Each structure stands twice: as C-alpha cells, then as structure tokens.
C-alpha cells in the first residue's frame, strides 16, 4: 500500500448539462490535513459531493487506498472509509444529540478509536446536552455533533465542508482545536474552507479552486499571499 490514502484523477462532474468540475486532480497522503479553499461556486462542495458518492463519478476517477470508489453510492462510500461533515451540519431534527452521534455508527461493524465516550471526551459539552434535540443546540455545538457523528464510523478520510461557516471566531477556534486529536486517531482530513487564514493554519497542504479547477496547490508556507490571491479570485493583486 502506498502512502496515498485518497487519490482523485481527472475528475469531472455535472449538474445536468452544467459542468461543475473540470479534470480535478488531488492526492491526500495518509495522516495529512488538506485544505481546499476557494470562493463561492468554485466547485469545492461539488468535489465533496462527488467524493462521498452523492454525485455519481467514473469509478476510476476516485481511488481510496488504490481501490476505485468513484461509482459507489453514498452509503457504500461511508462503508469503505470516507465520512463527511456536511455543509450546514444537516443534523437530524427528530433525533437527540446522542442519537445524532450514534447514527454515524449505523453501518459500522467492528470496534475502533471513536466511541460515544471518545466523542464526549472530545466535546464534553455534548455529554451534558445529550438528551436535547440536536437542532436545539447553538451553531457551534451543532457543528461538534456533526463532527462527532462523522467520526463514529471511524473513517480513514474525514471530509469537513465549510465547518466554520456562520460561526463566531472563538467557536471556530474551539472546533479546530479538536483536529490534532482527530488526526491522532489515524484519520486523514480534507477541510473545505472559505476562511483562508483558518485553512492555512490547520492544513499541511492547501489547494485553491476556482471555476471547477484547482488553480494552486502547495504547502502553506510555500504559498505567497499574492499567489493565493490570484488563484482565489482569478485576478492579479
């Protein structure tokens, strides 16, 4: 097995006749945290939807541990080891906080690092609120539930789609404080962010997307402010 956990090769995606992704190439190394930045409509969320199987893709366009998974459905993608914290959290309003977390383990068969207790240890406030409806919590706490829910399947790859959207900076800091422990658990992480500063802080590698293409890729320390600006907005600073 190589050190590459997730590999995307020449991925295209369509919404009807509208092409949203144009030949995207991406590699995620084991244990890496990769940030994908880009403006609204750049194709970041489409890329997440393609990886998780919500949008159909050619089988060979997405490889997980060298296995083609592009043609799998969303439940199958979860079972092979990719889970997602969806944009807007998407908690289930009929379920309590604890049920929302537990449902992340719906199709899990074996044991693993992440258990209900481990999630409560990561986000202690959730234990106090475990009997509340998931949607009765604050935005930040809901995001913690969504992250806990995604971890419960013990994924090889955790996708986080815009987890800082609409949250106060202090809450965002608290949520990202959980990332070192998530990476310790063995999960590689892809973070989709509009907040460039946050992305550069949390990631080992950054890709910038614009209009369905990756326009820049590199380690945060290698990327100049101007290069990111150009790749993000498509114009020179």
């Amino acid at each position, binding site marked *: 097995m190589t050190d590459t956990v997730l590999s995307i090769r020449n991925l295209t995606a369509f919404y009807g006749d509208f092409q949203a992704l144009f030949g995207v190439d991406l590699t995620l190394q084991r244990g890496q945290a990769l940030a994908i930045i880009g403006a609204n409509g750049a194709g970041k969320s489409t890329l997440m939807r393609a990886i*998780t199987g*919500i949008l159909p893709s050619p089988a060979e366009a997405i490889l997980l541990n060298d296995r083609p998974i592009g043609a799998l459905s*969303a439940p199958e993608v979860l079972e092979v080891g990719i889970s997602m914290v*969806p944009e807007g959290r998407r908690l289930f*309003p*009929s*379920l309590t906080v604890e049920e929302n977390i*537990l*449902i*992340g383990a719906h199709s899990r068969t074996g044991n693993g690092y992440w258990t209900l207790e481990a999630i409560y240890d990561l986000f202690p406030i959730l234990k106090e609120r475990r009997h509340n409806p998931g949607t009765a919590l604050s935005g930040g706490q809901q995001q913690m539930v969504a992250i806990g829910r995604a971890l419960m399947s013990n994924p090889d790859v955790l996708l986080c789609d815009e987890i800082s959207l609409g949250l106060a900076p202090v809450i965002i800091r608290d949520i990202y404080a959980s990332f070192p422990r998530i990476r310790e658990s063995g999960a590689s992480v892809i973070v989709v962010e509009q907040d460039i500063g946050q992305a550069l802080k949390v990631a080992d590698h950054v890709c910038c997307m614009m209009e369905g293409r990756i326009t820049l890729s590199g380690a945060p320390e290698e990327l100049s402010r101007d290069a990111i600006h150009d790749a993000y907005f498509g114009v020179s600073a």
Partner: protein
Amino acid sequence: MIWVDTIVQGILLGGLYALFAAGLSLVFGIMRLVNLAHGDLIVLAAFLILTVVNLLGLSPFVAVLIAAPVMFAVGWALQTYVLNRVLGDDILPPLLVTFGLSVVIQNGLLEGFSADSQKLSAGPIEAASLPLGPITVGVMPLLTLISAVAVIFALNQLFYRTKLGRAFRATSDDAVTAGLMGIRPRNVFAIATGIAMVVATIAALYLGIRANFDPSIGPARLIYAFEAVIIGGLGSLWGTLAGGILIGVAQALGAAVNPEWQILAGHIAFVLVLLIRPRGLFPRAND
C-alpha cells in the same frame, strides 16, 4: 348512562379505526407517501387470513401469525419494486401508482374470491361480553382497542428505542444526509412498508371478525384511516390513535342521535378538527 355507554362503544370502535390508520401513519411519517391502496391492502390481508383459515382449519387468531409474515413480504416487495421507483419530489406519481394498485387489488380479489361477502369466524368470543361497572362491553371490541394500543406502543418503541427506528426517523428528516450515515433509504422504506403491512394484517383480523367484507370495501376503510391520521397530526402515532378514537366516538354519538348519522358524524368531526387545528391534534414540530 346511555351516553356513557355510547362513548365507550365509540372509543372501542376507534381502536379499529386506529388499527386501519397505524400502517398509513407509519408509511406517511417515514416517506411522505400517501398509500391510496392501504384500505385494499387491509382487505387483501383479510382474504389472506380467510384463505389460511379455510385451507388449514385454523382459528383466525392463529392464521394471522401465518398471514403477517406473508404480508410483510408483500409490503417489502411492493415498496422495493414499485413504490421506490416513483418516490421523489413530485407527490403525484406515488398517488397515481397507489390509486392504480387499489383498482388492481380490488379486481384481482373480485376475480379470485367473487363479490360475495365473507366473514372470519372467531367462535364464541365474538358474542362474549364483560360487565364493566354500569355498562357492558364486548370482548372483541375491547380486544381490538387493546390491540390498537399495543400496536401503537410497539411502533413507538420501535421508533424511539431501536437502531432501526433511529434510521426511520433520520431518513424521514433528510434522506440524503441519512445516506451519508450509511443508511440506505430505499431499504429503510421497504422495511417500513413491510411493517405497515403487518399492522394492516392485524387490522384485517379485527375487520374480518367484526363485520362482513368483500373486495370493494377497501376505499371506505382508507377514508377512516386517512381521517384518523390527519386528525392526529401527520406522522404522530399516538395522534393517530387519538384520531381513530375521535372518529369512533363521533360516529357512535351520531348513531345514538339518529342511526343514519353515524358515518356523517365521523366526517363532520374530521372537518371540525381541520377547521380548528389544520395540522391535526399532535403535529410533529418539524413538519
């Protein structure tokens, strides 16, 4: 005292309506599907019980144990091979398909069993009664209500205490996100319809013992069931029980005033509830 007796008889009758409605409520609650063939599927189950009784010489109460798993399979297959194909954002295709199914079941039963009225015979228990203080209640109606409460209780336990129930509720909330959790919504729907058909079989048992049935009576059962679900609040199982009882009591009171008013009184109660509480008595908060 006659009014107390009337209301008690109405409550007991409501148990039967709640049984008609519980399967409908379950399916609607999970997949927002209004199954217009639900009444006909109850009648189908009644004929299935009758067939088992005739072939094996069993009591209907034993025959239902054979019919229920068969009806589960019917429900599962119906959902997997027919209804899952038409479920989507547009509510019209499932309505049309279940309407067509209703016609097909009625005509199929007519072909197979003729238009003759049939009845399930439960023996002496049908005429048995219990003194309950100043009034007397029939054992069968009492058993029907107890069964309705037990079915609703069991469905609630399933919904709120099991992993499957969690998957039911999550899928009902948001099928796409449920897919991200490894839940296969179509499988969940198939199991739900299977369970609804088991409940329909229990309803069929009491329907067949209480009164005559023939292939054409399904749609009228559907109306009572539908009214019970709407009165209770869409997707609320205890609400469905309350809705069934409300219709039962209204019908009993209507009949006490004038026997011709029985059915009408039930429908008037339904319209009144809709006027006062358009979302039903116990609507789900997130609908």
